[in-house]
């Protein structure tokens, strides 16, 4: 690898032992990738030092120390010793927690877990890391600019960052983001480089794509079809709002490994098809028509059998303020017959609170929670057998993770299920 002077200095230990261990881990990672150098980054989103009770107990038992510093040293940096962790600079944020600090009991969490999270947050604050606690940092105050080098976790945020914003990040992991927070370095590989950002697969969209559900289905279809490749969409699609991009990208990065997509005439690096493809021919052309749309709808609902719905989960990825407006409007003055949890970031919840949306949802019987979601927390209301979801991503993960049946449909289908206790969704 070609190392810059500041990188060599960190490797030599002149920045202290924690930076040295962080650089060592990044070098192992960069060499595995086959990267030749690092790129500087100050926009880093990860889950530094955060520990479940399992991790805390594990390190208490095996290293005699389950503190933030211990987890950061031994787990995040994969080091052999516990080190003092220096303060991070730049725009470093923490993306996720396992529980809502207010509604932890509803989530089935223990007081111990809640207090553990509070302690973790105090440690983050001491280390100069912003407590964002959301899978949608771009809706909560971390919005990069086009071309900015970032090091982000969270597949749905990564695909949004590359595709919609035109900033540059690979799908980083917990260990690489924590190391980057200390060093300001990440391997110069993949999406940091121009030639990696061109589309490889052409998707001809022939079925109409209008609703958020439509965008989720299209994303789910494309992820399965192109796996980790880069699709460019052409055809019957119009400019989408951030909410539709959010659901599309999240779905495509769940059924496959899509980290970037182009939409001709819409996304920043696709002024035309030629530019999106980097003047190359697509490896394959894939059609998405009425039949594919029907098939993907059936795939997403293959795990739904019992029409009696116990639980409606909204906010995957974390709900935008527009979704709060829509859900508040659909629930206005009514009472739900199922459980309904809606997940978002603390930033968006603050706006939803002062806009009156939270109260209208709560008055109907719903609960608004932050920081986590049912899949991350592995938490559904007690006795839940059947859930209704408006997110293809959550439909992909939740049934396998907590052993429930799931129906997938529009937000309106989900609210109808909450109001009647029955699933009546269908493909229109």
């Amino acid at each position: 690898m070609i190392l810059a002077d500041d990188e060599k200095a960190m490797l030599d230990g002149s920045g202290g032992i924690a930076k040295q261990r962080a650089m060592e881990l990044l070098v192992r990672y960069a060499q595995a990738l086959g990267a030749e150098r690092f790129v500087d980054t100050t926009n880093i989103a990860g889950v530094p030092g955060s520990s479940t009770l399992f991790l805390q107990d594990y390190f208490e038992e095996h290293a005699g120390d389950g503190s933030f510093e211990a987890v950061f040293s031994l787990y995040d940096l994969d080091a052999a010793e516990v080190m003092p962790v220096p303060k991070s600079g730049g725009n470093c944020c923490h993306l996720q927690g396992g529980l809502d600090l207010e509604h932890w009991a509803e989530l089935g969490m223990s007081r111990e877990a809640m207090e553990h999270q509070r302690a973790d947050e105090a440690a983050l604050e001491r280390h100069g890391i912003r407590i964002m606690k959301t899978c949608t940092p771009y809706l909560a105050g971390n919005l990069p600019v086009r071309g900015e080098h970032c090091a982000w976790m969270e597949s749905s945020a990564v695909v949004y960052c590359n595709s919609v914003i035109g900033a540059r990040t690979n799908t980083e992991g917990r260990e690489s983001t924590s190391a980057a927070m200390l060093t300001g370095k990440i391997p110069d590989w993949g999406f940091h480089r121009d030639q990696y950002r061109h589309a490889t697969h052409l998707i001809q969209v022939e079925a109409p794509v209008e609703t958020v559900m439509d965008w989720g289905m299209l994303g789910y279809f494309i992820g399965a079809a192109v796996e980790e490749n880069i699709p460019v969409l052409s055809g019957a699609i119009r400019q989408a709002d951030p909410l539709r991009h959010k659901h599309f990208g999240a779905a495509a990065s769940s059924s496959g490994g899509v980290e970037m997509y182009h939409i001709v005439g819409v996304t920043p690096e696709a002024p035309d098809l030629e530019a999106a493809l980097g003047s190359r021919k697509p490896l394959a052309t894939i059609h998405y028509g009425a039949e594919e749309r029907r098939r993907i709808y059936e795939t997403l609902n293959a795990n739904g059998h019992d029409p009696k719905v116990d639980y409606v989960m909204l906010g995957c990825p974390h709900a935008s303020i527009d979704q709060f407006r829509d859900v508040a409007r659909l629930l206005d003055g009514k009472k739900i017959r199922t459980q309904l949890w809606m997940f978002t970031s603390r930033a968006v919840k603050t706006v939803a609170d002062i806009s009156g949306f939270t109260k209208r949802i709560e008055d109907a019987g719903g609960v608004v929670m932050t920081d986590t979601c049912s899949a991350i927390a592995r938490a559904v209301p007690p006795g839940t057998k059947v859930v209704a979801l408006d997110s293809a991503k959550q439909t992909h993960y939740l049934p396998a993770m907590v052993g429930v049946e799931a129906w997938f449909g529009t937000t309106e289908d989900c609210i109808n299920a909450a109001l009647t206790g029955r699933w009546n969704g269908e493909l229109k």
Partner: protein
Amino acid sequence: VIVLHGRGIVGGRAEGEALVTHETISGWGGIDPMTGTVIEIRHELRGQSFKDRVLVFPGAKGSSGWSNAFHMTRLTKSAPLAMVFNQMTTKIALGAVVTRVPAVTELDQDPLSIIESGDWVRVDGDAGTVEITKKRS
């Protein structure tokens, strides 16, 4: 014995029975890190564990929690003995590094068309080789 040559990305040597899938694997949400079992619905390995086996697969997909999920299998002693894969991604590179098991990629022949579950596989992450002894049929 068949020998494939490639690039080792994590050093060390290990051998054992192969567990082969032609489908990419999700880390977070796709495996149970407590047991090393694949849990993804519709995955051909659903219900099977890679613990103490040489995992042969196309690559990683899904959540950025991939490295964390495999890192956890190291702690729970449910990690695969070694990894042999085709498609390089940041998820798998970081995941292999922190799982600390020998890992080899960029092989001169497609391991997925040569190795079958149950074959005995010896992985050398320093030399970048994969040695296969076919199971008796």
